[in-house]
């Protein structure tokens, strides 16, 4: 996809984006209620605790919801593309593109794994692809 604009990280999200430089998917974790905090913040919106840490994620998950853009020219693109919400095995939900497959293969419930697209500043953008076989 052309010209991915990703803004500078917030203070809370900086560790997430730093890890992407090594193609590592990390999640902010609340050690009080033992659940991921997505998106990263200065406190846990679930238990309101402030004991926050970072954990490595498996990069595996399942498509929770999906749409294929059939009018890509409306978005400055040339090819159909899929936007999905992925539920990671660790419990966090991320928006991403599902890449490396045909529009007809985009299904809710499909198992997926993370893949990466380099950004100009050395960070990498997490995307997902189907787990096949």
């Amino acid at each position, binding site marked *: 996809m052309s010209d991915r604009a990703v*803004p500078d990280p917030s203070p809370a999200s900086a560790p997430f984006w730093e890890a992407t430089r090594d193609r590592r998917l990390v999640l902010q974790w609340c050690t009080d209620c033992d659940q991921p905090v997505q998106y990263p913040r200065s406190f846990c919106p679930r238990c309101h605790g402030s004991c926050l840490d970072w954990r490595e994620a498996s990069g595996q998950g399942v498509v929770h919801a999906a749409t294929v853009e059939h009018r890509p020219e409306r978005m400055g693109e040339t090819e159909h593309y899929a936007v999905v919400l992925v539920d990671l095995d660790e419990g966090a939900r991320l928006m991403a593109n599902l890449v490396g497959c045909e529009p007809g293969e985009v299904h809710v419930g499909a198992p997926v794994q993370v893949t990466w697209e380099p950004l100009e500043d050395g960070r990498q953008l997490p995307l997902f692809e189907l787990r096949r076989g």
Partner: protein
Amino acid sequence: MSRSLRGAAAIVGVADACSPTGELEHFGRDLETRMVLEALEDAGLGLADVDGICHAQSAMSFAEYLGVHPRFTDSTNTGGSSFEVHAEHAAAAIAAGVADVVVSVYAATPRSDRKQGRSFGRVPPPGPNPAAEWEWPYRLRMPIGPYALAASRHMYEYGTTSEQLAEIAVSTRRWAELNPRARFRDPITVEDVLASPMQCSPLHLLDCCLVTDGAGAFVMTSAERARSLRKQPSYVLGAATCHDHMMISQMPDLTTTPGAVSGPAAFEMAGVKPDDVSVLLGYDSFTITALLHLEDLGFCGKGEGGAFAEEGRTAPGGQLPMNTNGGGLSYTHPGMYGMFLIVEAVRQLRGECGARQVEGADIAVAHGSGMVLSCMSTLVLGSEATL
């Protein structure tokens, strides 16, 4: 703490502007002012009576333009549901004696603006913007994309079909056939909806609301004062609001909107059940939006919205008249459609709707949806007989 606004305030004046061409001659403050004056005229009031202003961008700027010095001011913006929220706030203010006559207004002319190259600038949100970081890189088209994601999940969990979503567009168009001011009035079929170009799957072009110019206003005052005014008052029986996310990736459950909170709360305050509702004005930005309202407001069970929408149940002559003006799908949709829900609810209660009038309508629900299924606000209005 429980509270009740039931019967404290009433909508006494309404106005709206739209056109079968989708375009209006006036725009901006001029158009807003026309709406306010028309709604006040409808009520038999004047600008000198107004002591409360609601405006979804800037009540201060608009009051300055009008030359009004309000003691109640509300610039709440929850997207398309802003005007139901304004109605709730206005009723609360009137009930508390903070204001006597409150006006809410809306105007937008996206169709003419585009045609004439008008641009008014946009202000970016302050500080780090989570959407720019976590959603915008993935090019989800707004506003349709989030609704497409919700529809995909509803289909996966409940087996809802594109045909069932299409039924909502078809039934709504049948109401528009009865409204000479509607943008689109030619009958459509389920097949037409499915054959219209796919936009963001699973939503087709005819699953989407229009983009038109449009404007409107309402005037609210105390129930006591309402009785001495020109038109039959539409009393606020219940009002409630809830929002549970801003970004679609943060929505707790893609198949249940915060209307499942605001709807029952407003109905409880009003002392009504879904079966008592004569007319439902349920914000139809997309067919899936209206389907979710049917479930979350309790007209059917969760997951049953698709089946409920079949057989013209929400069409003229059906058991639940829904979006009798033709809705955002066929009447008008300038961007924040919630104002038109209120205007139509009031006109139905007054019996002013001509060919589309629902016989004996005495309870009308205006259910606004704002942003991306983010903020729902439910307003239950009733005639004198329902007090």
